C-alpha cells in the first residue's frame, strides 16, 4: 500500500518542481520603434549585423550561456526573415536549449506581443523578458535567486529589472548609448524601484517625486547614473497584467510607470545592479556604435569576435585590437588602424586607410579610400578615392569613385552613390521611398536629387525629432559645435544663478557694504553666500510677485542645501527685507519708517514662518542691531521705532525683546547703544504684561 502512495507523492512533487526548474525567456525580435529606419524597412533589426554577427545571436548566445532552457522568439515585422534565419542557424537544433518562434502580424507594441504570448499559455514560471537587440554577458544565477527569494516573501514582487552604472554625459544629458538621462528612485535597503523617469526634462532640472514615497521608509536614493539594461526577470503575473490592462503598450513608459503609480494592486518592481558584467541594449544608431566598440574592446567577453562567430570564418585577434578573418587580400600599402574588424574575403586596395571601423564579408575597397569610424556591412563596393567618416553602409551598397559620406550618414541596402557625390551629414538614403506623411512636396523634391550621377536612392527627410535632434542618436560622434553649445548653455545657466546670487537685479547694493561683507566673512564664507541667495530670492519675489508659499519653499531648500537653522533664515530674510526697504528711494527718516512698515506688512508671512521660537526672534533683533551698526547706519536712529512696528505686527513677541534685553545686560557699553535707545520701549513692555496679568486676575 505504501509504495504506490509514495510514487504518487513523488509525481506531484515532480509536477511542482518542473515548472520551477525550467527557465524560460521571451525574446522580442522586434523593437516596435522606427529608430533604425530606413534600414529596418528591408531587414528586421535583430538581423542587422553587429560586428559582423546578426544581433539576435548575441542575445541567444547569452541566454543559452546564462542557463535559459526555452526561448520564445516573438517575431512581428519581417517575421519570415527572422524565422528563416533561425531555421538556417544552429539555434533550432540545440539539445538543451529550445528555441520556438511565435509569429504575429498585427502586434504593434511590446504590450500586444505579451498579450499574445499570454494567450498561447506557454509560460509556466518566472521568465526573462528581453528584446533581441540586447548584448550582455551577465550571469543570471544571482538575480534569479534574489527574485525567487523575494517572491517567496512577497508575492507582489513580480519583476526584477537589471540596471548598470553608467555615467551620463553631463553636458548633453544623455548616456553614452544615446538615450536620455534616466532618473530612478530606489529604496537603498530593498532595492525596490520607486520612481522611473526616462523622459525627464533635464533643461529645467526639476523632478517631481511623490512625497508619499518617503512616508514608510527611512530613505530613498535617487540615481541618474544608472542605465536600464532592458533585461527583466518577470513572474507570470506580468503577462496577465498586460492582458488586464489592454492599454499598456510600452514596457517602460506604460507598464513600469503604471505599476509604480498604481498602489491599489500593490505590485512591486525591484532592481538588480550588475557591476563587472556587461549589458546594453541597442536602441538607436548611437548605441549601435557604442556597443560595437564595447564588443571590439572586449567588454562583452566571451561574446567577442574571435571567440564567438557564426559559420566557419574564425576571426583572429591581432595586436592593438585588430580582428581579421581569413582570406583577406590587403595591399601592402594599405593602413589598417587599431580596433578594426575585417570580415572574410574582403579586398583592400593601395594606400587605403581604415581606422576604428568594422568591415563585413566580401567587400571590395579600392585604393586611396579613407574609412574612419564606419560600419560597412557585407558585399559593399567602395571605389577609389572615397571618403567615409562615421557612417553605416548596408549590404550591397556601391560607392562610385570619389564619393564622400559625411558623419552620420546611413546608406540602406543596395544604394548607389554616384561619382564625386557628397552625401551631407546625417542623411539617410534608401532605395525605398519614405512613407509619405504630411509634407509630401518636400520629399519629392528630395527624391529627385539624390544619389548624384548614376546614383540610386532616396534621401529621407529627418524623422520626428527633426534635424536638431539628429546628432543625438547618430553614429557620428557628437559634433564639437554641439558640445560647445551645450557647454555654453550649461555655463549660462550657472552664470545666471551666479549673477543672481551676487548682484541683485535692482543693482542698488552699495559697493562699500559689499566690500565690508567680504572682509567680514573670511572664514564663514558660506554664510554670506547663503544670505545673498536668500536676498536674491526675496528680491525676485518682490519683482516677479511670486507667492509667499513659493518663496518659503525656495528659502527652505536653500536652508537645506547650506545646512542652516531656521534662525539663520529669519536673520537673512529680515536682512534682505531691510536692505530692500533701504534700497527704495526715500526722502526722510519718516518715509523710511513707512517703507519698512509697508515691506514688513506685505511680507510678514514670509518672516513669521521662520519665527516660530523666541530664539529666532532674538536672532532677528540681533541681526537688526548689527545692520544698524555696520551696513545700514540709516536705521540706527530708527531702531526703536522699527522694533515697535515689528512688535505691533506680531513679528516679534515681547518675550523675545525682553530676553534680548536680559542678554545684553552684561555686555559692553558699546553693545548697549540700542538697548539703551529702546529702554523706554522695553520699560513699557515690562509694565504692560503685568497690567494684562492683573486684568486677567
Amino acid at each position, binding site marked *: 500500500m505504501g509504495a504506490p502512495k509514495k510514487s504518487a507523492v513523488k509525481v506531484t512533487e515532480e509536477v511542482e518542481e518542473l515548472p520551477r526548474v525550467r527557465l524560460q525567456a521571451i525574446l522580442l525580435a522586434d523593437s516596435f520603434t522606427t529608430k533604425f529606419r530606413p534600414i529596418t524597412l528591408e531587414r528586421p533589426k535583430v538581423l542587422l549585423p553587429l560586428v559582423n554577427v546578426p544581433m539576435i545571436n548575441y542575445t541567444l*548566445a547569452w541566454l543559452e*550561456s546564462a542557463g535559459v532552457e526555452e526561448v520564445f522568439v516573438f517575431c512581428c515585422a519581417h517575421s519570415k526573415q527572422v524565422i528563416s534565419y533561425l531555421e538556417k542557424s544552429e539555434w533550432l537544433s540545440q*539539445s538543451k536549449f529550445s528555441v520556438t518562434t511565435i509569429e504575429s502580424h498585427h502586434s504593434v507594441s511590446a504590450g500586444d506581443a505579451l498579450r499574445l504570448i499570454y494567450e498561447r499559455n506557454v509560460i509556466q514560471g518566472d521568465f526573462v523578458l528581453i528584446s533581441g537587440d540586447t548584448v550582455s*554577458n551577465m550571469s543570471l544565477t544571482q538575480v534569479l535567486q534574489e527574485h525567487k527569494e523575494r517572491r517567496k516573501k512577497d508575492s507582489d514582487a513580480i519583476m526584477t529589472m537589471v540596471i*548598470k*552604472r*553608467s*555615467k551620463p*554625459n553631463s*553636458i*548633453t544629458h544623455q548616456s*553614452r548609448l544615446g538615450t536620455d538621462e534616466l532618473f530612478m528612485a530606489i529604496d537603498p535597503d530593498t532595492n525596490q524601484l520607486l520612481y522611473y523617469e526616462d523622459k525627464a526634462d533635464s533643461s529645467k532640472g526639476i523632478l517631481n517625486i511623490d512625497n508619499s514615497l518617503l512616508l514608510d521608509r527611512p530613505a530613498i536614493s535617487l540615481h541618474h*547614473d544608472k542605465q536600464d539594461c532592458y533585461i527583466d526577470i518577470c513572474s507570470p503575473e506580468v503577462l496577465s497584467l498586460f492582458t488586464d490592462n489592454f492599454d499598456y503598450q510600452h514596457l517602460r513608459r506604460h507598464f513600469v510607470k503604471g505599476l509604480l503609480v498604481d498602489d491599489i494592486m500593490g505590485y512591486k518592481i525591484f532592481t538588480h545592479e550588475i*557591476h*563587472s*558584467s*556587461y549589458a546594453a541594449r541597442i536602441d538607436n544608431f*548611437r548605441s549601435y*556604435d*557604442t556597443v560595437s*566598440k*564595447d564588443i571590439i*574592446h*572586449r*567588454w*562583452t*567577453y*566571451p561574446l*567577442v569576435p574571435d*571567440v*564567438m562567430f557564426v559559420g*566557419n570564418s*574564425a576571426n*583572429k*585577434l591581432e595586436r592593438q*585590437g585588430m580582428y581579421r578573418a581569413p582570406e583577406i587580400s590587403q595591399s601592402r600599402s594599405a593602413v589598417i588602424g587599431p*580596433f578594426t574588424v575585417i570580415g572574410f574575403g574582403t579586398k583592400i586596395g593601395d594606400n587605403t586607410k581604415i581606422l*576604428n571601423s568594422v568591415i563585413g564579408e566580401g567587400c571590395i575597397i579600392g585604393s586611396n579610400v579613407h574609412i574612419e569610424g564606419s560600419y560597412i556591412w557585407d558585399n559593399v563596393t567602395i571605389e577609389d578615392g572615397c571618403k567615409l567618416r562615421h557612417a553605416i553602409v548596408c549590404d550591397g551598397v556601391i560607392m562610385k569613385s570619389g564619393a564622400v559620406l559625411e558623419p552620420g550618414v546611413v546608406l540602406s541596402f543596395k544604394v548607389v552613390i554616384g561619382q564625386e557625390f557628397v552625401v551631407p551629414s546625417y542623411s539617410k538614403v534608401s532605395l525605398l521611398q519614405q512613407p509619405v506623411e504630411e509634407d509630401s512636396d518636400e520629399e519629392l523634391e528630395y527624391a529627385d536629387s539624390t544619389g548624384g550621377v548614376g546614383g540610386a536612392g532616396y534621401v529621407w527627410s529627418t524623422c520626428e525629432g527633426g534635424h536638431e535632434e539628429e546628432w543625438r542618436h547618430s553614429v*557620428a*560622434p*557628437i559634433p*564639437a559645435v554641439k*558640445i560647445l553649445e551645450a557647454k555654453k548653455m550649461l555655463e549660462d545657466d550657472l552664470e545666471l544663478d551666479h549673477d543672481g546670487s551676487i548682484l541683485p537685479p535692482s543693482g542698488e547694493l552699495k559697493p562699500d557694504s559689499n566690500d565690508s561683507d567680504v572682509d567680514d566673512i573670511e572664514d564663514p564664507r558660506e554664510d554670506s553666500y547663503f544670505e545673498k541667495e536668500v536676498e536674491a530670492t526675496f528680491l525676485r519675489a518682490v519683482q516677479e510677485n511670486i507667492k509667499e508659499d513659493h518663496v518659503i519653499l525656495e528659502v527652505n531648500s536653500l536652508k537645506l542645501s547650506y545646512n542652516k537653522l531656521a534662525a539663520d533664515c529669519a536673520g537673512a530674510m529680515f536682512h534682505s527685507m531691510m536692505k530692500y526697504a533701504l534700497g527704495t528711494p526715500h526722502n526722510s527718516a519718516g518715509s523710511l519708517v513707512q517703507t519698512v512698515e509697508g515691506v514688513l506688512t506685505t511680507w510678514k508671512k514670509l518672516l513669521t514662518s521662520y519665527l516660530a521660537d523666541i530664539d529666532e526672534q532674538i536672532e532677528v533683533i540681533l541681526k537688526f542691531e548689527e545692520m544698524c551698526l555696520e551696513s545700514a547706519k540709516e536705521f540706527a536712529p530708527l531702531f526703536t521705532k522699527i522694533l515697535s512696528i515689528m512688535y505691533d505686527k506680531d513679528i516679534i513677541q515681547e518675550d523675545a525683546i525682553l530676553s534680548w534685553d536680559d542678554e545684553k545686560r552684561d555686555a559692553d557699553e558699546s553693545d548697549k547703544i540700542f538697548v539703551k535707545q529702546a529702554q523706554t520701549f522695553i520699560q513699557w513692555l515690562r509694565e504692560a504684561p503685568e497690567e494684562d496679568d492683573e486684568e486677567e486676575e
Partner: protein
Amino acid sequence: MPDVQSLVNDFPDQLRKRKIEGSQATAKQTAELLRSVISQQRVPHTNQAGALIDAVRAVGEQLIAANPVELAVGNIVRRVLHIIREEDLSLATDAIAGLGLSAASDDEDDVERGDHPVLSAAAVAAAARSTLRPPSLQTLLEDIPDSGGVPQTSSSGGESEGKSRSADKGSRGRKLKHDVIEAVNELIREITDCHEEIAEQAVEHIHHNEVILTLGSSRTVLEFLCAAKEKKRSFRVFVAEGAPRYQGHLLAKDLAARGLQTTVITDSAVFAMISRVNMVIVGAHAVMANGGVVAPVGLNMVALAAQRHAVPFVVLAGSHKLCPLYPHNPEVLLNEMRSPSELLDFGEFSDCLDSASGNGSLHVVNPTFDYVPPKLVSLFITDTGGHNPSYMYRLIADYYSADDLVVKRRPTTGS
C-alpha cells in the same frame, strides 16, 4: 552513435564559449570524449589503426579549432593518436610473432604447401618492416597507412590463408580497439592523478624553514605544498595575489585553512620580497617543446626577479600540459585577451570610454598569459619527476609521435 555525435558537437561548443576552464578539466574531458569516439567507431577489417586515427583526427580538429588557446586539448588529441599508433605497433609485433609460430606449425602439419612458409615469412618480414620502421618521408608525403602493406602482401597467400587472416584481423581489430580504450583509460587516470604524482615529490624539494613564493592559484601548487606540510615540513609561503583575477586570495585561504603559514603580497611587491625567498613554485598553463612556459600573467616578472636573486624557479606541470609545439609556431595562439571589466569598473569609466563625445578614449588590455622563456626556469616537476628545461623535448618525444604534430596544420591547409 547519435549521442556521441551530439557530444562531439556539444564539447567544442562549450570550449568555444569558454565554459570549461583549467587545463586539467579540459584534458580529462577531451580524453573522455575521444574514448567514446573510439568506442563508437566502427572498425573496418583492414587498416583499423588508420580508421581510428582518422576518426580521432577529425574530432580533434574541431576541438582544437574551438579553443586554440587551450593547448591541453591538442595535447590530448595527439596523445590519443600516439596511443593508437603504439598499440597498433605492439599488436603488429605480437601478430608477427604469432604468425611466425603459426607458420612454423603450418610447416610441420602441411608438407604439401612447402612454398607457403617461405612466402609468409617474406610477408612477415615486410609487415614487420612496414610497422616497425620509423615514419619515413614517404609515409609523411603520401600518407600511406602503415598497416596497408600487410594485407597486400598477404593477398598473395592462399585463399584459406586469406580467410583465416581476415578472421584473425577481425579479432585483432577488436583487440586493437580494446587495447586503445584501455590505454586511454590509463591516460585519463594519469590526468586525474597527476596532482598526487607531483605532490609525492614535494618532500624532496621543500626543506625545513624555507620560504616559498607562488603567484596566483594552481591546484597543483596547492597539493604540492600541502603534501610537504603533511610530511611535517614547516615552511612559510608568500602568495602573490595574481591580479586581475586575484586567485591568489583563494589559494592563500586554502593554505591557511590547512595550517600553513601564509602571507599574501601584491604582485608588485614580488621583487621586494624575492630576496627572502628560497624557492619559487608556480603552476603553468602549458609547457612548450623548447621548455618555455605559458603561464598566468605576471609570472615572467616573477621569473626575472627570481633570476636576479638566483632563486630557483620551479614549474609544476602535469604531463597533459606538455605541448609538442614551439612557441614561435604561428599556429600557436599564445594568449587570450579577457574582458577589461576585470580591471576597471565599467560604470566609473564609461565616460572616458565614450569616444563619441570626443574626450579621447580609454583602452584596456587584459591578457591572460605570460610567456616565460626556458632560460628563466630552473626545474620542471612533472608526474614523472624533475626535469631540466632542455630535457623537455626528449620527454615530449616519449609522449607524442612526430606524425601527429600535423593534426594542427591540417585544418588550415585543408580549408
